[in-house]
């Protein structure tokens, strides 16, 4: 009853594709990001929740009541798609007015929001009232997103579903709209699901993350958990862990686990005991790698401190991604001014250090 949106053991066959046992629950205001490669079943999952596919088994509950057998128009869902899906033959005002629900109009506003069923008030709230008579083709992406949100709210939704809303946008616009959406969803306290293959969306928005592959859940949980402790190299790469490296267990002691990675021995914090010789994969976030200039020989014995050489540098905004060969390939982040101060260039010698707690071990 507490969950605002619950999906229970949802299974669906669609031609050769099969969605297998999808399970999750969202509380009011929680945002779930579904990640996965093309064809993993992300959009199908959304569309099944929206009522466009009949599941073979399983249930969908919105606000505690089962909607599995209801058609989309009776599920109270706000659906936003790539390019925002405004009706191109209708003005902004008509786009929002078409969604007006006589049966549900003027639900009790949650907070500072205008009554959800009131098209004019919604356009004002989103700062697009002056665009009411425009056609969608004349709007900027930011304006389209606001109109799309106003329109969805006009139908008084209990759940918001976003199907790759930003995928046609350039990086700057994407980031800006993402921020705006985040602010809006946090204020609204309606559960939302966002499907994407962009990990930036997940980092910016997700409370929970579900990673899909071939129609099945690979990992699902709190966003920080999935980011910090991916269960496989597939998930690690997908949530954007920069360093995913094959290794082999050397020994497990009470101080920690030693792993052979490339030509080095890397120490990880003590987790469960692992048999020596077992092949594993480690993931290390680039932001957990400390880069400094090489120092005297004395310091070399510190744990997880390796000497290396810069093999490549790539600048993105203020952040510089540095590829280092330290007996195994490693990527780290530095800020532009730091790189200048240290006088780093391709070929420079550096020292890297990784906290054992930042070394995460995965089975494959």
């Amino acid at each position: 009853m507490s969950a605002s949106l619950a999906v229970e053991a949802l299974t669906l066959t669609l031609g050769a594709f099969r969605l297998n046992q999808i399970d999750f629950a969202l509380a009011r205001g929680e945002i779930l990001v579904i990640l996965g490669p093309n064809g993993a079943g992300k959009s199908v999952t959304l569309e099944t929740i929206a009522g466009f596919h009949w599941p073979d088994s399983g249930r969908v509950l919105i606000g505690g009541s089962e909607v599995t057998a209801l058609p989309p128009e009776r599920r109270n869902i706000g659906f936003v798609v790539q390019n925002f899906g405004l009706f191109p033959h209708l003005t902004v005002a008509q786009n929002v007015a078409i969604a007006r629900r006589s049966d549900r109009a003027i639900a009790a506003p949650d907070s500072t929001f205008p009554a959800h069923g009131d098209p004019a008030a919604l356009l004002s709230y989103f700062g697009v009232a002056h665009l009411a008579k425009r056609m969608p083709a004349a709007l900027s992406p930011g304006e389209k997103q606001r109109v799309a949100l106003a329109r969805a709210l006009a139908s008084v939704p209990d759940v918001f579903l976003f199907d790759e809303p930003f995928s046609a946008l350039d990086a700057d616009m994407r980031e800006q709209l993402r921020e705006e959406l985040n602010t809006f969803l946090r204020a609204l306290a309606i559960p939302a699901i966002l499907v994407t293959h962009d990990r930036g969306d997940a980092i910016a928005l997700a409370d929970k993350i579900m990673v899909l592959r071939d129609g099945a859940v690979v990992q699902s949980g709190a966003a920080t958990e999935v980011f910090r402790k991916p269960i496989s190299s597939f998930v690690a790469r997908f949530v954007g862990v920069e360093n995913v490296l094959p290794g082999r267990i050397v020994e497990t002691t009470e101080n920690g686990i030693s792993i052979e990675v490339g030509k080095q021995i890397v120490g990880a914090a003590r987790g469960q005991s692992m048999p020596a010789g077992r092949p594993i994969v480690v993931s290390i976030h680039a932001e957990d790698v400390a880069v400094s200039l090489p120092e005297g020989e004395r310091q070399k014995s510190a744990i997880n401190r390796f000497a290396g050489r810069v093999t490549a540098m790539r600048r993105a905004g203020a952040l510089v991604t540095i590829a280092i060969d330290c007996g195994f390939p490693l990527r780290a982040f530095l800020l532009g001014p730091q790189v200048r101060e240290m006088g780093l260039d391709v070929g420079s010698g550096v020292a890297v250090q990784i906290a054992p707690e930042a070394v995460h071990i995965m089975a494959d």
Partner: protein
Amino acid sequence: MWLPPATPSYPGALYLACWFAGSVLLAFLVLPLVALALTQSGASLAGVARMVDVRDAIVLSLEAAFLSAAAAAVVGVPLAYALARTAFPGKGIVAALVDLPLAVPHTVAGIALLLVFGRQGVLGEPLQTFVGLKFWGTIAGVVVAMLFVSAPYTVNAARIGFEAVDPRLEKIARTLGLNPWRTFMRITLPLARRSIMTGVTLTYARSISEFGAVVILVYYPMTAPVKIYELFLRFGLEQSAAAAVLLLIVSLSLFVLLRTLAQRGGVPQENR
């Protein structure tokens, strides 16, 4: 989409060659009609326009073509939507069936229609007996003959129009509380309107110009093309040319008018 400005590699020569080849075709299309129009003086046109049987024939053609275009819209647009939105085994065969009349010689179509809608036809006889609807010697027969040869234009154009409507827009409409019928009427149909109107206009134009199927299924009452053929047989080129130019003027101006109406108020296209 951003396109690079014209550069030295701009394919000017290619476009020029295409336009040259194209103008040969355009000249071939326009020349006979211009030659025909030039044979007539205003006086001879006025003369033929005063002939009651010629006027009746043209009015009948316009009426019957209008009815057949309306009928094509009523049954063809739903078929087009079904073909655009559903997948089933044998869909290719159904699509080919729609195109079939385009491949059948129209005299053959006329004979085939006679077998179905004639006095002893499988539909002609019972419809006459029970409903009193006759397809010989009536406008109903003209409409049936026209519809058979011209319906594919409406179905195909409407289908292309429906296929161009993003199914996600329909899905969004559903989540906004519109049932499938309202979604079709408020979203899909208006977005495909231009293609549908283009198809209906083509059906109308093709119906007016139909001769072969009409002349076999219903000789009387005479449509304009049949009347012109009769004038040609009885009085020769001169008399028939005057009527022909009159029909040409009427049908072309209507075609241009309808085409303009069909293209108006299109949906503004997204810049991608």
